[in-house]
């Protein structure tokens, strides 16, 4: 079953004084099935963050459609966007985006509190989630007291605790050392095996090789995609590296 469908997505940034225009996305088309784990790769400036922001309803596209569960999120009214985001989407960011005013636990609770959930229920959900993420010991601590890897796991917990249809991650391993990255990627695979749909933007071939499918974006379009199929991560890693070499070598409009 298709959970996310992106059709002819286009985004043009206009600088404030109507001067130069930047075409970040030209014509992006792809679909994500429920339970899939998709990685998106591309050069710097190819429009990955732009795409993710549009999927997250943080930004409006210039043209095209984004269907989540068959519903066009572009058409959602301003008033409902926040609650929509809360109920259907989870986010993991490169720089964690934890609030320093809250303890780790309260950071994780934040979306549930906003949704008006009862404290018992929040506790229940957290107790179910925390052991798997390995954050039991740090729940009472504050973000400045824990390591980057722990922060990112807390951010994953915050994304998962609402039981979202889709988890969006923008370079989640970008600020982590290799050991923390590995354990985070392991975590993503694990939650994916439990049925969670994940869409991850990454620069790291290693990270991408843990996904089931890899989309390559170039010049604001989906340029190529790779399915894992029966491949092992090592094989997929090889294939991604090759694809990237070809893509960079091929050049493009800008080259």
């Amino acid at each position, binding site marked *: 079953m298709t959970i996310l469908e992106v059709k002819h997505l286009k985004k043009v940034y206009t600088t404030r004084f109507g001067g130069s225009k930047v075409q970040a996305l030209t014509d992006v088309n792809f679909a994500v099935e429920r339970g899939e784990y998709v990685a998106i790769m591309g050069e710097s400036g190819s429009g990955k963050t732009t795409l993710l922001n549009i999927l997250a309803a943080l930004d409006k596209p210039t043209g095209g459609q984004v269907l989540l569960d068959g519903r066009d999120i572009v058409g959602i009214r301003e008033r409902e966007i926040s609650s929509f985001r809360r109920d259907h989407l989870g986010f993991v960011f490169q720089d964690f985006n934890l609030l*320093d005013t809250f303890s780790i636990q309260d950071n994780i609770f934040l979306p549930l509190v906003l949704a008006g959930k009862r404290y018992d229920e929040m506790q229940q959900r957290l107790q179910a989630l925390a052991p798997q993420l390995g954050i039991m010991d740090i729940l009472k601590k504050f973000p400045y007291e824990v390591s980057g890897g722990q922060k990112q796991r807390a951010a994953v917990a915050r994304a998962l605790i609402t039981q979202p249809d889709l988890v969006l991650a923008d370079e989640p391993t970008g600020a982590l050392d290799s050991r923390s990255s590995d354990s985070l990627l392991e975590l993503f695979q694990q939650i994916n095996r439990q049925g969670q749909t994940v869409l991850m933007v990454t620069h790291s071939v290693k990270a991408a090789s843990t996904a089931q499918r890899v989309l390559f974006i170039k010049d604001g379009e989906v340029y190529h995609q790779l399915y894992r199929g029966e491949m092992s991560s090592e094989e997929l890693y090889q294939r991604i590296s090759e694809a990237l070499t070809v893509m960079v070598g091929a050049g493009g409009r800008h080259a």
Partner: protein
Amino acid sequence: MRKGLYIKIALQNIRKNAKVYVPYILTCLGTVAMYYMIGFLSYHEGIDQIFGGGYVRSIMLMGVWVTAIFAVLFLFYTNSFLMKRRKKEFGLYNILGMEKKHLSRVMLYETVVIAAISLVGGVLAGILLSKLMILVLMKIFNLNQPIGFMVSTRAIGSSLQLFGVIFLLLFLNSLRQIHLAKPIELLRGGEVGEKEPKTNWITAILGLLCLGSGYYISLTIENPLMTLMLFFVAAVLVIMGTYLVFISGSIAILKLLRRWKRFYYKTSHFISVSGMIYRMRQNAAGLASICILSTMVLVMISSTFSLYAGIEKNVAQRYPADINITLHSWQEEDQSALEAHMDAVLSAQQLGEVQMEKYRHVGFSTILDGNTVIMDEETMNSVGTLDDLWTVDMIPLEEHNALNGVQETLAENEVLLCSYGREYPYDSIVIDGKTYQVQAQLQTTKEASGEATASAWGAIFVIANQEVIDQWIASYPLLASQTDTIFHYNLPDASAQQLTALEETMGGDALLNTNLNVSSYVEFQESNRTGLREMYGGLFFLGLFLGLLFIMATILIIYYKQISEGYDDRERFEIMQKVGLSRKDIKHSIHSQVLMVFFLPLLMAGCHLAGAFPAIARILVLLQAVSDRMFFYCNLGCFAVFAVLYLLIYLITAKVYYKIVQ
């Protein structure tokens, strides 16, 4: 070459951090200017010529001290804010390979540049504005004469010295910070404040106790003589209490709220409680300072203004006529001798019409035990407390009738009574062992004026038949030596200058130079009015001046608070939006938090002002100034003006805040 590099970096730093440096430099400059001006008013001899010598320069000297102490504290406070913001940058330079030695040199040049701008600009601004100060002071003194341009080299020297030392200390302090810190700490400098402090219940409770006892003292002091000292104690307690309550108390309460799960985990409470904890720990000291400064401004201006505005009433009460003479005798021949002497003096001066009235009275201070006037010293010492102290003034009925133009009659066991300064709650009075009915309590009477009303305690004026008073004097010999005749001379045609000249020819405000064999003394209304005006006008001016200084400080503290919060809030704003809080809700929540943090000090200052009211009102009574009601309206007016000003500061600085957040 290398030297040039450091200077360049120093200048660049200042320019790059303009948002924090420009206000800082302006503050330094303003403080120097203020210090010069108050120093000028205190040190320049020309001031004596304009304002008649006396008190003005010594009152301003008080201001010099207060300003100097304030300047040290305040510049250190703002500098610490700057250093916090800058530490990150230092860390970066340090990591990029600049040694601490070089950093220190950059700091040195920065300090020198800032000091040079502040000192030169400040003194120049001070010199220019000091003329304005004199004009304001002249307005307060009701003077009107052309003045030239004056510069006090002593004030310039004093300003350069004081602020030179302050800047040197600031420089040494930043050196200390650079040298103590490790690079990684320098990098984190801006975030040091983010650690959540431990709740300290002891200090929180101590703070509440300090506040409570300060208020209690102010609200319950009865004894006017103790008021001044106790008020000082209360003020210190309240200042300490305010700091403790803002710093520990607020966080303790907020944390308590956070532990209350059912309350805390609600959308609106969740964000605002955690946000407030964060804000309070960043700004508690600043907020407490704003609160204290605001209270000081309000107390100073309202009380000094009350004193100033009360001068006329005060003078009319204490010196009811142009010339007031007290003659220590009831004898007819002494009275006529004095009148003859005065006639001779006044007619020689040709001052036009002369109005004269006189009355006899006998007065003393004693203890009232209920409605019993204690007449012997022994009992007085054994039963009395200062709170029961009264001035008892006795006037023969015939004198009262003549003076007030009335035709009262009294039975043998009756008196008329008028109280001043304090209620007399009984309808009878016991004097010399006999009970007298109070036939009527008079609202006012002409005898209720002059020296008898000049004490800090209350006075009763007892009007009785001559024979009754004679009996009292007979049975209480001390009274015999207290019999006075009061003469009021009014000269409606004489000008203020003529009256001053007359006083000089009569030998000043002193014993009357006659060949009478009893003593007497004379008091002139005009010279006393001038004296009070110098004193209270000077104090009022000082109140305004320091008020201005403190308001300047308040604005800067608020401005820095808004900037530092703005930078922090910007990030949080974005994250919350990503997690699913709508823009509108965030704006609403942040707005209400900012408002709350902003107006908390004002609210608290209002409380302090109200709490201080009874004590200050009593001190003002001590200074014979004004009625409670008048002082109340002064307070209210000052608070209203201040609140409007505060609101304006808010609106202006909030703009900076929202600009940063967006």
